[in-house]
């Protein structure tokens, strides 16, 4: 019997034979989108250093991708990634982590590196919940939702992470859902090629901790909801703020050229060398 092997399987670390993801998790869709983007660009995993934080989304490349992977402390992957980019400016640095890791405990590093506009790709899997620890509310959980840490409903407004990163000074920002794998792949390709801080928010389902506990349902039900609520940037512009708040605005939210930090540092080194007695 001939064995059929997935064309992206060659990117997997040979020692990894199982997944830690729950059934229905959106991680797998993002794994495929990342690897497809790299493959489409004709690149190799050795062109990348992957950096992750703590939480389910941080396990996407760790240990799955057969590449250099630094699995860091909670909230800090972008800060580690900055040091890696400084040391290996010729390599692509990609961070994958969750909304809790990047926007709660690690929010400061997110905005400051967007401000620095240091070249890296940050993929934020936003499931609106703390999945690994059992479904606690986070800074992205919708107002009023009952979770394990908000049994009577949340009483805080959530972040719009993409808008936060835009305001902080990034070069490229896109938002998709797990219902949009092809669009997501296309945006990841652009992000990899972008000279600057690129941020991609992926609205993703956690059927186990979010779906069950909040009544959002199964993975299929949640993705069906993403399909129904998703609206393009262009169409969303026609809606009132109130109407827009009910939808998930998807697409490329920002793509602009601005000074990139690694290049700016090279200029500084030249100035310093010139001024050295």
């Amino acid at each position, binding site marked *: 019997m001939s064995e059929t092997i997935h064309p992206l399987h060659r990117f997997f*670390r*040979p*020692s990894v034979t199982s997944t830690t993801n729950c059934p229905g998790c959106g991680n797998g869709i993002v794994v495929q989108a990342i690897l497809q983007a790299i493959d489409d660009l004709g690149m190799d*995993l*050795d062109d990348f*250093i992957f*950096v992750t934080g703590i939480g389910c989304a941080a396990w996407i490349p*760790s*240990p799955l991708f*057969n*590449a*250099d*992977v*630094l*699995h*860091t*402390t909670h909230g*800090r992957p972008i*800060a*580690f*990634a*900055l*040091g*890696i980019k*400084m*040391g*290996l400016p*010729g*390599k692509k640095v990609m961070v994958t982590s969750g909304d809790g890791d990047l926007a709660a405990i690690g929010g*400061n*590093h997110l905005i*400051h590196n967007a401000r620095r506009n240091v070249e890296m790709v940050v993929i934020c899997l936003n499931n609106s919940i703390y999945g690994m620890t059992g479904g606690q509310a986070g800074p992205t959980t919708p107002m009023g939702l009952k979770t394990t840490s908000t049994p009577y409903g949340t009483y805080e407004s959530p972040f719009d992470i993409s808008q936060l990163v835009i305001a902080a000074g990034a070069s490229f920002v896109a938002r998709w859902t797990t219902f949009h794998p092809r669009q997501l792949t296309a945006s990841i390709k652009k992000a990899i090629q972008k000279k600057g801080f690129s941020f991609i928010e992926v609205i993703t389902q956690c059927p186990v901790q979010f779906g069950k506990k909040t009544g959002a349902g199964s993975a299929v039900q949640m993705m069906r909801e993403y399909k129904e609520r998703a609206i393009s940037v262009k169409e969303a512009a026609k809606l009132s703020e109130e109407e827009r708040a009910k939808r998930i605005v998807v697409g490329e939210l920002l793509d602009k050229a601005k000074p990139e930090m690694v290049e700016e*540092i090279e200029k*500084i*080194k030249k*100035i*310093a*060398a*010139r001024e*050295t007695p």
Partner: protein
Amino acid sequence: MSGKRVLTGKYFMMGNTACAEGAIAAGCELAAGYPITPATEIANRLAERLPQVGGVFLQMEDEISSIAAIIGASWTGKKVMTATSGPGISLMLENIGFAVGVETPCVIVNVQRGAPTTGMPTAGVTGDMVQAKRGSHGDYEIIALCPASPQEMFDHTVLAFNYAENYRTPVFVLSDAFVGHMREEVVIPEPERIQTVYRKIPEAGADPRKIKGFLDEDVAAMPIFGRGFKAHVTSSCHNEYGQRNLSDLEALDNFVRRLSNKILKHKDEIVLVEKDYEGAEIVLVSYGAVSRAAAMAAVLARKEGIPVGTLRLITVWPFPGEEIEKMARKAKNVIVLENNLGQLFPYIKAEAAPYAEVSFQPPSIIGQIHDPEAILKKIREVEK
């Protein structure tokens, strides 16, 4: 690059400046930090000097990201450092544990100041001595050196880089506001007279599946990034290949013990002390700036005919227990001098008490460095 790494010459130099020069002489290529009194001059000097030699200084958003960035850069093969004071170390501790856990060479300078909490920034108080060893969670070993002069701020920083590279571990330089801000003669030698070492890395082209990059008590070659080693680096419990294991307690036991043994096995190479207690009945044990007062007090006591010696700890972690015992076996009385309420005293006492009377003497006012006359008074009391 046109700047020189080693500014050979004789200078009247501030301790913090000498520390930065030591780092650059040792081959530091990247530093990251956040301004804090009384350590800021180190960052300022590195910000000026590193770009001159092709390096980078990053001013970060906080100390958490400072240590994170240098660990990341160390994994690209760079020699790295950060400098801060107690409040900054408190913020760094989680990631210092990370650096220990994934065996990352880096140098952390703590110019200690008046504490606890925000304390008194310009006061020199060695209040973070145990924090360096036990501040991050879990069992681990660390290396820490205690300079007592601007010259040693240079020398010990070079040494700290060498230890970091040799043993793939974070190394502390535990200075304080006195030594950091002190100005004295600093001699920077010729480059060829400064010994520098670089970590072992796997052979180019090594099969990634066969690289044992972790948990070797004789220090594994570091599978740095960008060389095709496909390193999986996780601070979670892992084996020698870097493979995560979150279920077997034997794997955890192996992880904890090997990390610690890596340092303890090489303790003899790491521990440095200065001893001058031949024939002494009373021995003053101290470290850092206080050792200067101890040396003076010993001179005064000997003039009075009291046989007083000194033992100065240069390496405080791993703890030089064997050196303490060796000294205590020859002494009648041991006086421990620290510019705090007795941080290393319990450790020293545990080693010395079976053989000698051990007492503790803080300065009359914390942060003031002992008056040699006050030490002399204590010596006279003990002698009776």
